[in-house]
């Protein structure tokens, strides 16, 4: 069994040719997913500031992690248990800008909750992305249970679940890791380590530098990867997915990244971190970085890039227009779906 340290090394040793084994069209799709994610969330910020939506939360800065991870799985076969920042996961999985905007506006047609949950409580039955709640880390156990069922039923399915580094403090995360280890389940824990849990720096959440160190205590692999390097994220997750599919059990992949925006539209991050720190990270923006790489490697041309971005703008604009005009949920339906069959209520 590889220790956290070993596999961390393994995953960063890809150095020489980081995109080896990733076809060009996939690289371009990854890039497009990242840009689309960013532009969708940019627009969400604007909509909230304009008072057109009540609330908004995003993972800006974490797109390489989210898109990289998701490209490593088999969409439609594998299961996804994301967390509230995972717009990049949603888009890479196949959710459309329209669907994300429907969710933001709380519309009946929104695939995540049909207007019942706050935005960013992702879920999409057709895409095997399971509806999540707000209390953090609970979804990690659902991923484990889903992986258990896959194993018991002999299905070649892998489950991935993501959460923030602060959320690893929850008891449920420990129980999920432990259960997955004991039963050697095909599940991958993605820790999107952005250094903060709302206002609290990582040092107030744990006494170690790497969450990945904990995997050894559950008998499986833990890797640390530069979460702003989409190819590294992809390669590491890919390897973990293959291991899981081969019956070699779970992995933890810790992606070191940063959210370059406040926690949510209700947060003012100037209270707890310097502008300088944020700017440093903005300089390391994962999208710019990947763009440069693709241009340098001749995989992307300036022209294609511009065309792609223009298409994305249209897509986002269309999405907002569509979602804003879509129907609100009907209160007459609000008593439904408590149970499969509505009980006769109070007379």
């Amino acid at each position, binding site marked *: 069994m590889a220790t956290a340290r070993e596999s961390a090394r393994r995953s960063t040793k890809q150095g020489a040719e980081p995109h080896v084994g990733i076809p060009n069209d996939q690289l371009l799709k990854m890039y497009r997913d990242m840009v689309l994610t960013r532009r969708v969330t940019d627009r969400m910020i604007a909509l909230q500031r304009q008072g057109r939506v009540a609330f908004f939360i995003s993972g800006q800065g974490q797109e390489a992690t989210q898109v990289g991870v998701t490209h490593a799985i088999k969409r439609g076969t594998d299961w996804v248990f994301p967390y509230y920042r995972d717009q990049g996961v949603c888009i890479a999985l196949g959710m459309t800008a329209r669907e994300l905007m429907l969710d933001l506006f709380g519309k009946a047609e929104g695939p995540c909750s049909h207007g019942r949950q706050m935005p960013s409580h992702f879920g999409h039955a057709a895409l095997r992305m399971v509806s999540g709640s707000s209390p953090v880390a609970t979804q990690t156990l659902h991923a484990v249970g889903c992986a258990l069922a896959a194993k018991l039923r002999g299905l070649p399915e892998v489950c991935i679940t993501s959460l923030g580094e602060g959320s690893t403090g929850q*008891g449920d995360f420990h129980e999920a890791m432990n259960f997955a280890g004991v039963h050697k389940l095909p599940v991958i824990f993605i820790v999107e380590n952005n250094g903060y849990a709302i206002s609290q720096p990582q040092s107030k959440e744990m006494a170690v530098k790497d969450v990945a160190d904990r995997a050894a205590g559950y008998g499986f692999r833990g890797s640390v990867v530069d979460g702003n390097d989409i190819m590294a994220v992809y390669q590491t997750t890919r390897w973990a997915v293959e291991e899981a599919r081969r019956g070699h059990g779970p992995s933890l992949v810790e992606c070191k990244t940063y959210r370059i925006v406040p926690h949510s539209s209700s947060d003012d991050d100037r209270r707890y971190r310097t502008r300088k720190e944020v700017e440093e990270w903005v300089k390391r923006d994962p999208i710019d970085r990947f763009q440069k790489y693709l241009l340098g490697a001749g995989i992307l041309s300036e022209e294609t890039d511009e065309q792609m971005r223009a298409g994305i703008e249209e897509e986002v604009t269309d999405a907002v227009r569509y979602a804003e005009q879509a129907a609100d949920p009907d209160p007459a339906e609000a008593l439904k779906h408590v149970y499969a069959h509505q009980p006769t209520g109070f007379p």
Partner: protein
Amino acid sequence: MPVRSVLEAIRDALREEMADDERVFILGEDVEEGGVFRATDGLLEKFGAERVMDTPLAESSIIGVAIGASLNGLLPVAEIQFADFILPAVNQLISEAAKLRYRSAGDFTCPMTVRSPYGGGIRGGLYHSQCVEALFAHVPGLKIVCPSTPYDYKGLLKAAIRDPDPVLFFEHKKTYHLLRGEVPDRDFTVPIGKAEVRRRGDDLTVFSYGLAAHYTMEAAERLSGEGIQATVVDLRTIQPLDRATIIDEAKATGKILIVHEDNLTGGVGAEIAATIAQAAFEYLDAPIMRLAGPDVPAVPYAQALEDWYMLNTDKIADAMRRLAAY
């Protein structure tokens, strides 16, 4: 018809459901070995380690994993070794199991059953005697079943396993061997959400469930000899309540007693009383009475204290006499 104890009825239901539907599987602490009350005895041998599975000692994971497995085509029957130990799993039950269907407007569901022994009278002290049903009876999205007869145990457990929603199936541990009764060998279910009128009388109506329902029947038989005729309603399902039956049977006699072992304040009896006080008010001939456990944190251990806490036939008969005389 064969006679079965409560425990045997439970085991029969599990075995039959597992044989009939290969999606059904059991997970929990010590279940492979048969469980501390031996409810899963023999199932490992019959169905193998893939369908009867010991879990790490962590209740939140038992429930969370069951939810996840139910999402992927299985029908988990999770055992929580004692109902007292369901508390570490409350977040998974209330935030997740109860709300998954609602929060996705039906796109995702978690058909699962959680079995757990509850209740006192076996010298279990504060943490092996608790009734926990009232904690969940406030939570839409969960179903809660507390049977009292071996027949109902079998029929309701089968119904729970087949139910498309999460069901908490609470087993009064003192009744495991105490209560015996006729139970068909064949397949049958008892509907969740339906109370049962166990006996009818004109003088008063008593609502109860679980072990208390058994004592209530004994008390009613005793009072019958004294000329007091009681209707006894066994609620069986705690959530969703069978309000129609509750209201009808309350109206029929106008004198209401609600009996449960769980402590009084905020117990299931409060909702029954409130329902009747609203919907059957004009039929009432007496104050709505509740007889329940004292408002202490749980059943204390020493015999004298346990006796003080627990219901019995005498205590119930006394309350019925007082109400009948009102």
